[in-house]
């Protein structure tokens, strides 16, 4: 089973890296970029086929390590 955990900065948290990327895109002449926030994507392969179990394990992983919940949100997506 494959899954993806996406970690993003909570709104209101200053993201200087996102700002720098935003500036670079603008200087490259990429049109219509209003703002950029950067985050992380984890592609995780899971053994077993129980979707609920997998979601619980990924939640555990995100809470314990993948995200710092002081400043970050995460989203879990288990692909069949």
């Amino acid at each position: 089973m494959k899954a993806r955990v996406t970690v993003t900065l909570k709104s209101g948290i200053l993201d200087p890296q996102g700002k720098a990327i935003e500036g670079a895109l603008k200087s490259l002449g990429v049109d219509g970029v209003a703002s950029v926030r950067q985050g992380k994507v984890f592609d995780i392969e899971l053994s077993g086929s129980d979707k609920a179990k997998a979601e619980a394990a990924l939640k555990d992983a995100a809470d314990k390590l993948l995200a710092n919940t002081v400043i970050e949100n995460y989203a879990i997506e288990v692909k069949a």
Partner: protein
Amino acid sequence: MQAVLATLALEKPASNGYVFAASALLPTILVVQPGTTMKSAVLVFPGINRERDMARALKLASGQEAAMVWHADTALPKGTDLVVVPGGFSYGDYLRCGAIAARAPVMDAVRKFAAGGGLVLGVCNGFQILCEAGLLPGVLMRNARLKFVCKDVHLRVERSDTPFTRGYNAGQVIRVPVAHGEGNYEADEETVKRLEDEGRVLYRYCSAEGIVDEESNINGAAQSIAGIVNEGGNVLGMMPHPENHVEDIMGCTDGRGLFAGLAAHLEKAA
């Protein structure tokens, strides 16, 4: 530094065991006479690179050799009364600075030690590790101006009545180096307010004259925070490196007060 030495001399007369050595090897270093009991443990994670500097500073202040404790160990040496998490780049700063080191086996022992009131000092990456381990609130984010900052900075010591600052006077300005890319201390508004209300900001970035302003806030930290303690006052995290300003050959000895203060505190407690 003259002021620091004078302060210590005034507060703690000869009876505490301090002498000021004037030998060629240890010029004007604060040396503690035999009998000092400070037992410090310096944690070592892969990618940490300031552990030797730290051990040296601890030895200069206490006369005692620090124990080097490997990250995979599950216990601290018996009788440890100070745990130091040094600076560096544990696990190559992968995932988030300090995130992986904070989950190392030895950190369970450190949590237990801190919960029992034991003194813990985290410097630079050590500060990041303590935040990630949940021993200190908040987080160290990318410097607001995105640059890795490596230079001497001035810090205002906010109070002198803690084990981590008793070697200084309240309001004293010290000069110590910083070297970090992620030192921008942030926490939610309520946490920052609590830190301020409870007097838990011990070190703050300031100008040479002791003025806290935007220009001297090198990484954009909330309230110019350079170092904070936990609720119990026994865990300090700070971004600057006091261990790198402890000997004359380093060009400045302003960092000594922190270690001398810790040694004096533990002497008294013993």
